[in-house]
């Protein structure tokens, strides 16, 4: 018993003990920064609750109708009637969840139909559905590249790509963002015989810039033993003739070995996937731990995903509207005098670069108060220590909404001093 009392005392060291530390001490800086931010009287940018969601572009936050401009719901499929009907039907017929791994009891007819829809969409011989996009990158990268192999990645890669590297046993080599020369140089310094996986993204989600894939592929092909994986999370649905992504639009389909993507953006639900035409690809289902050791997606989710993916194959009109909205918002914000992440509208993400955290939070809150939700992003998630307001457009934003959005940015910019 005395042991138990000692343990309890150690686990709950009284605050008056000087220099007391526990496993949470490493977060003291983060806690202090957050408290300083909130004590300045601003709302917590990372604790927004949507009380009601009226459409892909409109939600109720604290009783106020708020235009959504930071959801990655690019194609507005979340409320598509066919998608919702498919989900309801699957919920009725197959239940609320699978309670099992894809390789045991967790593969239903719906999971196969979803993978069939992906194969049709991408024109590949294989498709593997993961429970999230994060797990798709985690699983593919950590499983493909093993001990003695190399993963070569862009410095601005998404956290799921970095985490896939850290989960695996390969050597990790980073090159400067979107730099063909830097990629070429680093590949040239690696052992010729070593097997390499080069990981690229079609659209980089912080600035909304697009990778120069043809030049990168050409540089990679100068070096032996390289396979290429492209993450098209932010490109699916509206780049390329079939909406496959930036790699299709830029004409490098034959050079890419693996495409990773997500259902939580253009598809409008949740889940992740990898498609490939490699003849041995199916072995990944047995070897890939983030695929094996987790429960599969609920039947309603794969049914909504499959329906949405098949509709996205014929969504030319939505694509047009999305690009029109993106171009208009980009030029409108630029004309107002904001500094943007890209000189031209390269994707459906438009980032407004602000000077520091105080200005970014002030601007973010001012927009929210007048009814506009955007994402706030800050280091270390952002490149070069920048503070960003990230806007992502939706095909369902109306012309009136885009006009309202620009008006709101002008008002908030003047009120906070972000605009002169």
């Amino acid at each position, binding site marked *: 018993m005395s042991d138990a009392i000692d343990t309890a005392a150690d686990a709950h060291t009284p605050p008056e003990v000087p220099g007391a530390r526990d496993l949470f001490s490493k977060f003291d800086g983060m806690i202090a920064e957050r408290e300083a931010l909130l004590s300045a009287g601003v709302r917590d940018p990372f604790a927004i609750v949507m009380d009601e969601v009226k459409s892909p572009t409109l939600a109720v936050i604290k009783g106020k109708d708020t235009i959504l401009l930071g959801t990655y719901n690019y194609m507005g499929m979340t409320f598509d009637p066919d998608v919702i009907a498919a989900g309801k039907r699957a919920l009725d017929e197959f239940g609320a969840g699978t309670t099992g791994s894809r390789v045991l009891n967790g593969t239903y007819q719906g999971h196969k139909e979803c993978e069939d829809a992906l194969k049709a969409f991408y024109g590949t011989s294989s498709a593997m559905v993961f429970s999230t996009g994060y797990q798709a990158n985690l699983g593919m990268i950590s499983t493909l590249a093993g001990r003695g192999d190399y993963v070569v990645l862009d*410095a601005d890669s998404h956290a799921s790509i970095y985490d896939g590297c850290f989960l695996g046993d390969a050597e*990790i*080599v*980073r090159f400067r963002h979107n730099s063909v020369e*830097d990629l070429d140089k*680093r590949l040239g*310094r690696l052992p010729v015989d070593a097997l390499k996986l080069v990981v690229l993204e079609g659209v980089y989600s912080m600035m909304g810039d697009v990778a120069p894939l043809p030049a990168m592929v050409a540089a990679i092909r100068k070096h032996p033993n390289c396979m290429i994986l492209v993450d098209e999370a932010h490109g699916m649905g509206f780049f390329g003739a079939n909406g496959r992504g930036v790699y299709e639009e830029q004409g490098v389909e034959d050079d890419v070995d693996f495409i990773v993507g997500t259902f939580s953006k253009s598809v409008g639900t949740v889940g992740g996937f990898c498609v490939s035409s490699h003849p041995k690809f199916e072995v990944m289902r047995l070897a890939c731990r983030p695929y094996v050791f987790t429960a599969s997606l609920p039947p309603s989710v794969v049914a909504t995903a499959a329906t949405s993916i098949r509709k996205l194959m014929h969504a030319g009109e939505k694509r047009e509207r999305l690009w029109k909205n993106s171009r208009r918002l980009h030029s409108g914000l630029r004309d107002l005098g904001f500094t943007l992440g890209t000189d031209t509208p390269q994707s459906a993400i438009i980032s407004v670069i602000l000077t520091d955290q105080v200005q970014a939070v002030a601007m973010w809150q001012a927009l929210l108060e007048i009814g506009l939700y955007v994402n706030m992003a800050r*280091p*270390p998630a952002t490149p070069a*220590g920048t503070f960003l307001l990230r806007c992502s457009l939706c095909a369902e934003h109306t012309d009136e909404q885009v006009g309202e959005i620009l008006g709101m940015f002008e008002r908030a910019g003047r009120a906070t001093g972000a605009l002169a």
Partner: protein
Amino acid sequence: MGAARAGAAYPRFHRMKEKNRRMTDRQTIFDSIAAQVAPFNKKGVALTDATTFAGDLEWDSLTVMDFVAAIEDEFEIIITMNMQAEIETIGQLVDAVVKLSAEG
């Protein structure tokens, strides 16, 4: 062209020898790394083998990333992220560069 190439042969050979010597000399590598640190050494910390990047120089992860890329290009080597995780001091970085340059 032939004459020009013959004339350039000696200086080029000399440069290669010079480079090999430079790459394996620990003090020279320390000096070179110290020169690369300087623009990021905002507090003017005196640099020794024991100087830590995170603690003494107070570098964040983005600064470390830029710095590592510059060192890689200076010495034409690769410092993998796996290796970077083990490097906390300038001395450890110098040793890593000495080793990697010898391998290259």
